[in-house]
């Protein structure tokens, strides 16, 4: 799995609540049985004036000159709600997004981020507002530096925001662990559970 340790980049504001995964990657953009080739369709309904011919919408935040090369998204409440499609995260990752800072996340989307080396950071809206004020002057100059081990977002020496993330989520990202391998390390426990469970709930086993 893709590691995440530190990241510095341009941040772009998509400050709306309830941005759903249909908006992040419309169903119609999920054309193949594949995790790849999705970034072109990311935010397609908002990003293009003419989706089929890929005519960019100059007003969409990621199309604006000042946010070119953005790798950090700032958003509102419940980012990534809706459909479980991991394609939303695959599209964001392929586009180059490494960090999403939002008030809260859709639960499935958040897990999908962790599985693909994107760091989901939850912050109160007041702090997100402060970060927005800071980057607004010149997003290309006012980059954000994120250090996962230290749990910090650094804007300037005197503007450092601390965030919380569970230790195991952080470990997965910091070490780029494969969750399947990690779980299989506890295979003895799984087998023992199953043996006992077969006696307790025999009807479960087909």
């Amino acid at each position: 799995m893709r590691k995440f340790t530190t990241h510095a980049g341009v941040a772009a504001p998509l400050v709306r609540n309830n941005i759903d995964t249909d908006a992040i990657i419309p169903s119609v953009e999920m054309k193949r049985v594949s995790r790849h080739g999705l970034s072109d369709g990311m935010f397609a309904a908002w990003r293009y004036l003419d989706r089929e011919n890929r005519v960019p919408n100059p007003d969409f935040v990621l199309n604006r000159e000042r946010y070119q090369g953005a790798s950090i998204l700032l958003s509102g409440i419940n980012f990534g709600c809706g459909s479980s499609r991991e394609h939303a995260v695959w599209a964001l990752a392929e586009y180059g997004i490494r960090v999403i800072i939002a008030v809260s996340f859709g639960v499935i989307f958040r897990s999908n981020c962790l599985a693909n080396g994107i760091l989901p950071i939850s912050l109160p809206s007041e702090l997100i507002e402060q970060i927005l004020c800071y980057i607004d002057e010149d997003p290309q100059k006012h980059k954000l530096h994120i250090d996962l081990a230290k749990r910090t977002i650094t804007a300037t020496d005197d503007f450092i925001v601390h965030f919380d993330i569970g230790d195991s989520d952080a470990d997965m990202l910091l070490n780029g662990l494969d969750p399947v391998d990690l779980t299989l390390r506890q295979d003895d426990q799984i087998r023992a559970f199953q043996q006992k469970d077969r006696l307790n709930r025999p009807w479960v086993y087909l």
Partner: protein
Amino acid sequence: MGKTLFDKLWDLHTVADLGDGEALLYIDRIFLHERTGSIALQSITGKNRHIRMPSHVFVTMDHIVDTFPGRGDDTLMPSGREFIETTRAEAKAAGIQLFDIGDKRQGIVHVISPELGIALPGLTLVCPDSHTCSLGGLGALAWGIGSTDAEHALTTGILRIRKPRNMRVTFTSELKPGVTAKDMILHLIGRFTAAGGNGHAVEFAGPAIDSLSVEARLTLCNMAVEFSAFTGLVAPDEKTIEFTRGRTYAPRGAAWKNAAAHWQSLISDADAHFDAELMIDCAEIKPSVTWGTSPQHTVSIDGCVPEPDEERDPVRRRAMIRALDYMGLKPGEPMKNIPVDAAFIGSCTNARLSDLRPAAEYLRGRHVAEAVRAVVVPGSTTVKAAAEAEGLDRIFTEAGFEWRESGCSMCFYAGGETFGLGKRVISTTNRNFEGRQGPGTRTHLASPLTVAASACTGKITEAGDVELAESTRPQGSAA
């Protein structure tokens, strides 16, 4: 201190407590569909890994298949065939049960899993589909996951999960006539927002829940994800136990008796602690309908499109203005004045037999308005056959509805069928997001009864109003 139903289900499936609120949970059933399951299966094959419990894994074709009569592997959606063929080949190679096109057990995943007894009370069930929470209506611990987690669950039989907090939503007093489970969940989300359940497993309780049918409880729990909950749950009761009896994959004989006895213990203890409690008085719930582009944009059907100027939060206000623009509506407009171009009855929310019956009953002797395109898509091939045995298909078609094969159909747009740009649809589905039913398509979520009534008048209509007007019309007067 006592345990909640969710705590009990969590503890029953905990293989290892990892500390910090995390655990390895044992997964009893995995369901896949051709949309997202195909990728998980392909990825497992690619890594030369294997499915741990193939007999506990099921696959259906629902998301991409067409619902036109006489359908095959070709789809209106470009490249749909690839999803279907990949899924079929991978399912065969993995030795897992597939409910293929043409199979009489085929249908929408969350409709067929209770129908076949694959989802049962007390089981953990996951599927790479967000509406897996529907099965909480049976008292199963069921939730949607991504494809990577599906791969994890398939290969290890386990998922690593941080335990959500406990919430209880109690529905007190009785539902008014014409108010359904769909109206209850829309009302809840409208009042407490689309993020209201974030971080929580939500148990629905109270006298109004006790009186709901099992199928209605599936509808209610279906939209727990629209409330941003980890999942929804209803404690199993006698109705649930009866519902499971004799289902294809349900236990039989002595095993069934033991299972049923176990299921009866799956209730929240009287002294269980909930981190959050919400109360809703059902007397306040009217048939509900959405006006905007989030399920939280819900109002009572006799209400009006809200006024953004009255919203103090700037982010929410901007969202409302944006939604009004997308929906082509003006603040203050009565919902019942809004004309509709199309009516859709279907989806994992509202396409079970108990959804089709009241809609058909309403439509008997009535007809869809001239300019309205109306489509009904049964939730499963079994539902379709049962409905046809009762003659519901004829009522729908005589009323002017198209009667389809089972599948997810126009609940979402994948490049195939849509009602079209700018078309306004009254729909029994679960998501009114921008573009969900097609580019520029405007969705109003409602119950099957409201959809049936609106289809007939060509504008958003409360079924009860029409029935009342007809019953008080003097005899012999013109129709």
